[in-house]
């Protein structure tokens, strides 16, 4: 275990800042994020455009954790950048709370793969930079105490005055997480946030992200190529076919209860069904589906799959009306 990493369950913090009070969530029929037919094309050498992905439709409900899985080249990062507003889509629209996304916003915090901390600022300085961007009218003391709350949330107390160069990779990513959460965004966007970390640190941070998101009831969208990470963290796993001209092949609904943890997940009854389904997809089906999508495929309603709940291979059904957002089980930190 590297220095400075603590037991993720050491501290419990309840942060009462859910951007969506429960009553508001229940009143809302609109998903938080609605992605409608986005595509990305690059002009090719011979004038014909290369399509990375197209006809991508999906939505994210408030409080939901959605993972996007696919091979390199299917435009995962581009989709995240479009959601973040950092890159325009060549086609289609993305709506947040019914309003079209036209650029980056404090509503959507991004956790970058490379942590993207500013090396000339301390831990508190990095978080504080985000906090003063969100609330420019706050005075120093208020910014400081707000930063402190998030430093403690990610278990970095004691390292406030350190610069990124003095932190381990895992600690740097914790600062990135704290910086993203500190602005109390409507949703978190994570671009393979743990892929640069060693396995031990990664596991610990995954566990912590699970705890923090449960506490803050944060909506999250994450890109990963790690099947286990997706099963542990996600409520819904969006599977992309291979690129070019990648599409959403299907959306897997995670049948495991939200109280799953890193230590007990492999004992859950449907764990292997989900895992095999995902591995199977990445190994062979992502390529086959890129060549030919199944008859009856509707890009606007990619098939919803729940492996393990029906016969082998999972049940394939057209997207049914979404379950009411408020009815999803929400794990609390105490259940760990």
């Amino acid at each position, binding site marked *: 275990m590297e220095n400075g990493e603590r037991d993720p369950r050491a501290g419990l913090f309840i942060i009462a800042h859910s951007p969506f009070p429960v009553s508001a969530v229940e009143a809302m029929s609109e998903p938080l994020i609605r992605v409608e037919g986005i595509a990305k094309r690059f002009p090719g050498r011979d004038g014909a455009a290369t399509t990375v992905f197209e006809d991508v439709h999906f939505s994210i409900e408030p409080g939901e954790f959605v993972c996007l899985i696919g091979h390199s080249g299917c435009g995962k990062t581009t989709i995240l950048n479009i959601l973040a507003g950092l890159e325009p889509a060549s086609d289609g629209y993305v709506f947040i709370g019914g309003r079209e996304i036209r650029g*980056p916003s404090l509503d959507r915090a991004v956790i*970058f793969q490379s942590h993207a901390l500013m090396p*000339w600022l301390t831990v508190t300085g990095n978080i504080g930079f985000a906090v003063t961007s969100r609330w420019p009218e706050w005075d120093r003391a208020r910014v400081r105490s707000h930063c402190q709350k998030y430093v403690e949330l990610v278990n970095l107390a004691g390292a406030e005055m350190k610069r990124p160069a003095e932190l381990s990779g895992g600690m740097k990513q914790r600062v990135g997480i704290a910086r993203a959460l500190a602005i109390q965004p409507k949703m978190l966007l994570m671009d393979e946030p743990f892929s640069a970390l060693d396995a031990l640190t990664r596991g610990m941070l995954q566990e912590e992200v699970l705890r923090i998101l449960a506490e803050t009831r944060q909506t999250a969208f994450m890109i990963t190529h790690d099947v286990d990470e997706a099963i542990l963290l996600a409520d819904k796993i969006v599977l992309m076919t291979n690129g070019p001209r990648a599409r959403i092949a299907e959306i897997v609904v995670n049948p495991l209860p939200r109280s799953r943890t890193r230590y007990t997940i492999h004992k859950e009854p449907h764990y292997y069904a989900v895992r095999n389904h995902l591995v199977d997809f990445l190994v062979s089906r992502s390529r086959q589906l890129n060549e030919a999508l199944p008859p009856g495929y509707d890009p606007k309603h990619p098939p919803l799959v729940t492996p393990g709940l029906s016969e082998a291979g999972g049940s394939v059904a057209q997207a049914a009306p979404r379950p009411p957002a408020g009815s999803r089980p929400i794990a609390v930190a105490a259940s760990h």
Partner: protein
Amino acid sequence: MKGIQFWGAPLLSVVILLAFLALWHAGTRQEAGGEVVDAEYAKLVGTAAATGQKSAFPSPAEVGARIWQHLKEPFYDKGPNDKGIGIQLGYSIARVLAGYLLAALVAIPIGFLIGMSPLIYRAFDPFIQVLKPVSPLAWMPLALFTLKDSSVSAVFVIFICSMWPMLINTAYGVGAVRREWLNVARTLEVGPLRKALRVILPAAAPTIMTGMRISIGIAWLVIVAAEMLVGGTGIGYFVWNEWNNLSIANILTGILAIGLVGMVLDQLLARLTRLVTFPE
């Protein structure tokens, strides 16, 4: 072992210095007996020098005595052609700082603009490429003609020669700010001014400071030449004046002073650079 590591280099430096002084001393030793030389040459350079009784080149002891004299009284002022070396250095430093700071005020903002916009970069590039290699002294006649003041012209020459390293390094540093930091600023909806001051400036500061360090070195090189041309005051003028006086000891003192001040300026900028450099 540790003692050798620590004291080895300074000790070797002292040995090199002593060897140099010894060679110098041996080369300028007074030789006995008169040499027969051409009469016309004797008239030209003075009998003492021509007969070879004593070389016009001073011995280390003489130079040492002269340096000591200058150190005892660095700030005397006995008219326009006879001022203490401290006053002359003061004039030069003042001119260098004036031209240098002026250049920083112009070069850093322009460099920022050029670095932020590839369009402006391409538009400015041909001008920079043409003007950069021009010797700063070539500007001197133009400066004298337009500014009509020799002292201001010297400052202008310093201004123009300190400009390019700062401009180019600022543009490069600003253009090379990592995309991820800019993306962080974008997702936090940071305004353009705040982004420039809180993200781009600290990120580019080490590169900008490196440019400023190169500039101060060039400025100090150029001031000596510029003052030799414009005359009046300054360490460059001092050296030229002592050449007219044929006082090699004073010239050597001037050279040493120029070297020492140059070193101090460079070290100052190096320290400032270290202050803004961040470990990755």
